[in-house]
């Protein structure tokens, strides 16, 4: 029995199993306390409301996997919302072109950050922190007031409901699910994905193996920038505005989701389906607070912070346990 338990803890899916269990327990608790939780639409709403967070989390997971970090995601999202709103309201740029422009902007900004970090060997957190301040400031430079999007096509896109039999999901949710699927395939089944894991495991080894470390690292930050821009589209589909304070603190939500979903902050270990459940857990907590009605929204931030702490501590213990197990097994095999 103990052997099985040890094996379970040492398995790389342990975090994932804990996360899924936690989600199920939280959801069951919700059903017991509030009748409304039973409706399938409440579950589907988790995807609609958190579409942007899911996309951002996918991007940030890539950077965490190589042992880096991207703190600029929330600010890039806000900048993209603002540029989109500006283009749609004050210029005659068609919707498709406007979306293309902000996606290219995200790619460009991510690539620039990645290039500076990798080329000059600087700490990712300081450059992306600067990136975060840069984008927030730039958003304020474009407009200090809220710009509402009234473009008829975009508004219709935002209110489109895709029927699923028991309920509906939005366009943003579809984009989010597609992003998840593509990211899972890229990380699991391509050369690039394996290189990302190799760099996270040990960068010098990866470099000595002849893997394209420089290119991959820049690519990873580019992906994160692209995901932030895409999340900006999903976010503006919900809010239909561009505003300086959009996505404030989203970087922490995304890092928390990724970590809760089983990504190691030291890099090299991560699991895309896990990140989905990380986001869903946060969504359930938010739904709880909405159903409860009297708690302030600030509780979400505090609860998410506490959850992040618990999971990081759990990771630390698991890593320690694993190294103990491996040293034990190597001693056993040596004595045989």
């Amino acid at each position: 029995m103990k052997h099985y338990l040890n094996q379970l803890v040492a398995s790389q899916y342990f975090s994932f199993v804990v996360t899924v269990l936690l989600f199920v327990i939280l959801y069951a608790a919700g059903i017991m306390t509030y009748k409304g939780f039973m409706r399938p639409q409440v579950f589907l709403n988790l995807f609609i409301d958190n579409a942007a967070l899911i996309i951002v989390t996918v991007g940030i997971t890539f950077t965490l996997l190589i042992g880096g970090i991207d703190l600029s995601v929330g600010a890039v999202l806000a900048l993209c919302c603002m540029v989109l709103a500006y283009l749609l309201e004050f210029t005659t740029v068609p919707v498709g072109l406007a979306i293309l422009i902000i996606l290219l902007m995200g790619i460009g900004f991510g690539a620039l950050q990645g290039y500076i970090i990798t080329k000059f060997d600087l700490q990712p957190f300081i450059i992306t922190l600067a990136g975060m301040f840069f984008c927030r400031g730039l958003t304020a430079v474009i407009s200090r007031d809220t710009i509402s999007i009234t473009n008829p096509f975009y508004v219709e896109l935002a209110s489109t409901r895709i029927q699923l039999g028991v309920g509906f999901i939005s366009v943003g949710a579809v984009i989010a699910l597609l992003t998840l699927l593509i990211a899972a395939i890229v990380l699991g089944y391509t050369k690039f994905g394996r290189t990302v894991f190799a760099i996270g495991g040990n960068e010098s080894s990866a470099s000595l193996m002849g893997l394209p470390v420089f290119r991959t690292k820049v690519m990873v930050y580019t992906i994160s920038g692209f995901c932030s821009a895409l999340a900006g589209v999903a976010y503006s589909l919900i809010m239909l505005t561009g505003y300086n304070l959009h996505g404030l603190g989203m970087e922490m939500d995304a890092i928390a989701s990724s970590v809760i979903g089983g990504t190691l902050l030291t890099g090299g270990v991560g699991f895309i389906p896990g990140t989905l459940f990380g986001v869903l857990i946060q969504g359930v907590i938010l739904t709880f607070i909405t159903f409860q009605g009297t708690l302030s929204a600030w509780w979400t931030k505090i609860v998410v912070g506490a959850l992040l702490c618990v999971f990081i501590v759990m990771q630390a213990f698991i890593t320690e346990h694993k190294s103990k197990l491996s040293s034990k097994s190597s001693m056993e095999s040596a004595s045989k």
Partner: protein
Amino acid sequence: MGKLKEFTSSSLFLPVVALAVLLVFNAIFVDGFLTIQMTEDGRLYGRLIDILTRSSSLVILALGMTFVIATSGIDISVGAVVAISAAVVCNLIGGRGDGVAETPMALAMLAAVGVGILCGVWNGFLVSKLKIQAVVATLILMTAGRGIAQLMTEGQIITVYYKPFAYIGGTIPGNILPTNIFIAAAMVLLVVFIMKKTSIGLFVQSVGINPTASRFAGINVTMVIFLVYAFSGFCAGVSGLIESSLIRAADANNAGLNMEMDAILAVALGGTLLSGGKFYVGGSVIGAITIQTLTTTMYALGVSADQLPVVKAIAVVIICLIQSKKAQEMFDKWKAKRAGDQGLEKAVEKA
């Protein structure tokens, strides 16, 4: 000539030159920038004094941040801790319209600084004991901290009408300079005194350069890292007092906003490497004053508070590039290549 070279290669060169450039710019373009007048009730008044006053809380934050960065860590929660400390002190004194304090002010101030230390202790525990990366550990408090401050003030801005509370960020009658300048000076002197009289500075530096080697040399690495974060929390707590006193209110959303960036920028500008190791307290202090001068200059040019981070973010990246070893190597290579080319040309000419 030797003296000049010594100065240009010293760590103080960059912040002092930056400050001088800013001051000269201001002196030329801003009317009455250098004049300092005496008001009727015997206070000194002028733009320079204003900059010193405004920079005092940043100087204090930069002191704490210097040690954290010296251990190759980072503390991005300082801004949120400032908000928490401000919320505590204003909550305890209370916003009673008749100007009576609900709790004695000294007690409220102690409590606010105590809460600041508590936040620092929490960060220190996460980083030193649980070995969580400093960015992520302090990121938790950076976002959750403002939530905590909001809960304390119940989403309101608490305005304090108790008169003596304004003395922390203003002038006590009879003094010629605002109190917060004295607080900042006292903190700097305290740190300098500790550096001179104890070997803590050496320990911090050693931990920043190589924690493993320091442990083998008998330094309690966990304790040093823990203390450094606790001190940073203490500094943020003190700065929260000043920030709230300046506006006589606790604003959980805006108190200490973007200050973590300013503090990091001040430390980096002061010559301390962001990768840890050798640190310069004097550099950080001048760096902080320079940043505040930059902020004031930008305001004078009509840049708004929420647009200002663009300038500062660019400054951070430039300083990082100047500090980066790789960039230096590339520059050296380029210089060597150019010198080589010139040498070749000369040789060709001679031939």
